[in-house]
């Protein structure tokens, strides 16, 4: 296993052995640790001292199900703090298979206008990866749906692509890093926190992998790994949410639209209501049934990456059976739908496609447009106007550049008071005034408002149940800490977070999850060990943030959520600050 460093100043690379202290660190655990160790917390996120670290998870590139995830870490230009964003893509196992534990991009070239691509392949004779550089300037300023086919044509064999779109090239705080899906679409985004701008600041347009001939990862205890793998597969295949033709495979993550809407927790028209009258037209059920009507048959969802047996990614079709976009996630149909007062699914799909094409994060984009609508730039419900504004962002008009800077900057530029962000990052699709527990996680995660920071793992397994009432603020704080720590471990394991559903409810699935990791690493971890592993990741991330000037006082929701009661329940966010502070006080 190596750490591969690409120096964009010298256009050179070197392979280093993985130091002993990183031996058990993978995925988010490694990206966060390396950012902490190597990036000065006060550096400019788009300056020469920031670095980008890519790392696949512990079991990525093995036959473990639903585990082709890669973490991307850096200092975020959006939040000013540490960032880990991850994506499911064949790029992840290809990186791991070449035994590259971490890929680090550092420095930037003196000639600022030129962009480069790198091609990383396995050098059979030398028995290690090799890196070639090529001039990629000619591919800039374009829709990534146009550049990807050109790259597939240029490079022979099975390749995986990592790239950045216009949004990153324009240094937006709202810009993701894009990876290919299984159908060669540029649609799998490590979306949040402006990671795309950091890659583009290095003038690196492509990181292309061809792992042909590479050895793959070692598994220390194969029988243990196989036992764990089998239990995981059984759990995933039998749970109502994750099984074939189950919740995620039928309706995708957008199954949550109607649920949150009925619960009064679907943020509507820039977080001014918890219920949207047009929600049902934008939901997973509507996507499934519109496809059925247009295609003349039921269409189940597909895998975003190799080896996924949950398969939650949808494709949305036009009336002429051509593809309109893939994939419409819950967060996207909400941010560009209810959040903007828009209920036209075709227009929402167009907006998702445009975000992908320009390299924008759909959550940050919807959050920003919501604030712009509040400011009167265009009215709520104006889907054509919203499509135009996304074009302005992609093209980099003066207004587009303000919007591309993100929700918080847009709020300041237009003097809007209701700005739904935490630590500078736009809030996802769960209203904290209606769902108080998620508010605690939004406020306290190291990443800025993030819905993937605290997935539920059975507290009785983690040993945190029974100590306090889960319905009380104190109980919720305790649960949030445990959930955030376990989530940090799942993000390091290489598994998609959606394995959390079956392993929460099926004890043997949880056992299998740990056995897989122990099998690969030769460790003897227990449930308590993985919580401790995850807690350590959070400690490192919090230490970086603190040194970057983001201290415990930043663990708060925006003030309007304490002042404005949210219909239909007419509740404010009333979790006391002491409960928010309690989340990490004991860690």
């Amino acid at each position, binding site marked *: 296993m190596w750490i591969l460093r690409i120096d964009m100043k010298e256009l050179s690379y070197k392979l280093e052995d993985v130091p002993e202290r990183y031996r058990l660190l993978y995925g988010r655990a490694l990206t966060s640790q390396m950012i902490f160790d190597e990036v000065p917390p006060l550096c400019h996120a788009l300056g020469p001292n920031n670095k980008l670290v890519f790392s696949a998870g512990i079991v990525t590139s093995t036959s473990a199900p639903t585990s082709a995830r890669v973490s991307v870490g850096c200092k975020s230009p959006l939040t000013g703090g540490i960032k880990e964003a991850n994506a499911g893509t064949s790029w992840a196992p290809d990186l791991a298979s070449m035994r590259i534990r971490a890929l680090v991009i550092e420095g930037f070239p003196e000639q600022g206008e030129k962009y480069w691509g790198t091609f990383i392949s396995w050098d059979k004779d030398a028995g290690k990866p090799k890196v070639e550089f090529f001039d990629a300037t000619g591919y800039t300023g374009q829709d990534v749906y146009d550049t990807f086919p050109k790259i597939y044509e240029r490079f022979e064999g099975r390749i995986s692509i990592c790239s950045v779109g216009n949004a990153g090239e324009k240094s937006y705080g709202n810009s993701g890093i894009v990876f290919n899906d299984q159908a060669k679409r540029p649609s799998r985004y490590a979306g949040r926190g402006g990671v795309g701008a950091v890659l583009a600041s290095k003038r690196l347009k492509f990181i292309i992998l061809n792992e042909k001939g590479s050895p793959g990862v070692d598994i220390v205890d194969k029988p243990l790994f196989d036992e764990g793998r089998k239990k995981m597969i059984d759990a995933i295949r*039998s*749970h*109502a*949410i994750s099984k074939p033709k*189950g*919740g*995620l495979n*039928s*309706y995708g993550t957008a*199954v*949550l639209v*109607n*649920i*949150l809407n*009925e*619960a*009064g*927790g679907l943020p509507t028209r820039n977080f001014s209501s*918890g*219920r949207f009258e047009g929600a*049902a*037209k934008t*939901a997973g*059920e*509507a996507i*499934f*049934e*519109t496809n059925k*009507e247009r295609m003349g048959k039921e269409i189940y969802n597909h895998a975003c990456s190799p080896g996924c047996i949950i398969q939650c990614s949808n494709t949305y079709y036009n009336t002429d059976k051509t593809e309109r976009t893939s994939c419409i996630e819950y967060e996207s149909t909400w941010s560009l739908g209810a959040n903007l007062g828009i209920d036209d699914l075709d227009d929402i799909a167009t907006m998702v496609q445009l975000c992908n094409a320009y390299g924008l994060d759909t959550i940050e984009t919807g959050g920003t447009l919501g604030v712009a609508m509040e400011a009167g730039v265009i009215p709520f419900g104006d889907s054509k106007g919203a499509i135009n504004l996304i074009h302005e962002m992609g093209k980099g008009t003066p207004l587009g550049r303000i919007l591309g800077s993100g929700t918080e900057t847009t709020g300041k530029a237009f003097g809007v008071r209701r700005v739904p962000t935490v630590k500078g990052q736009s809030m996802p699709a*769960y209203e904290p005034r*209606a*769902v*108080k*527990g*998620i*508010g605690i*996680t939004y406020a306290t995660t190291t990443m800025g408002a993030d*819905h993937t920071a*605290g*997935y*539920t793992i*059975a*507290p*009785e397994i983690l040993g945190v149940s029974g100590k306090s009432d*889960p*319905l009380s603020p104190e109980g*919720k704080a305790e*649960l949030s800490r445990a*959930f955030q720590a376990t989530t940090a471990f799942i993000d390091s394991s290489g598994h998609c977070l959606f394995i*959390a*559903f079956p392993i*929460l*409810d*099926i004890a043997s699935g949880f056992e299998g999850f740990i056995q897989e990791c122990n099998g690969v690493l030769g460790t003897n971890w227990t449930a308590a060990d993985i919580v401790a592993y995850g807690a350590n990741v959070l400690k490192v991330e919090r230490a970086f943030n603190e040194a970057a000037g983001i201290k415990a006082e930043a663990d708060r929701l925006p003030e309007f959520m304490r002042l404005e009661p949210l219909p*239909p*329940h007419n*509740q404010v966010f009333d979790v006391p600050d002491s409960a928010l502070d309690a989340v990490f006080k004991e860690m």
Partner: protein
Amino acid sequence: MILDVWLYGELRKFSDTPNKIGYGQMLLDVPEGYRMRDLLERLNMPTAARGITFVNGNLSALPGFQPDLEHVFADNDRVAMFDLRSMWPFQYRNGAAMTDSMRQAVQEHPEQLMHHEHSEEEE
């Protein structure tokens, strides 16, 4: 009195607009004292067919956990039912509003709060 009933996904087949995309919705005129049990009977829906259920935005049932059969409706209540493919992970409902009977049932069976019922009927 009037009930505003929303039936999502497959459950729309129990509504009077079974061919509508994604959901069925109807206003029903019902007598005073009408209960969830009566509504299910009128819809001809076996209670096991429904999963997550809300009354006025308050969670009243989860898949396989239905403490709401005796719930008595009031005029203009909004009732929403979801099919068994629907879901609501605990982290996204921790702290959400519940009906009184749900709150009480959860206090008696706290383990039900976090888990998604994994029963044979769902297989």
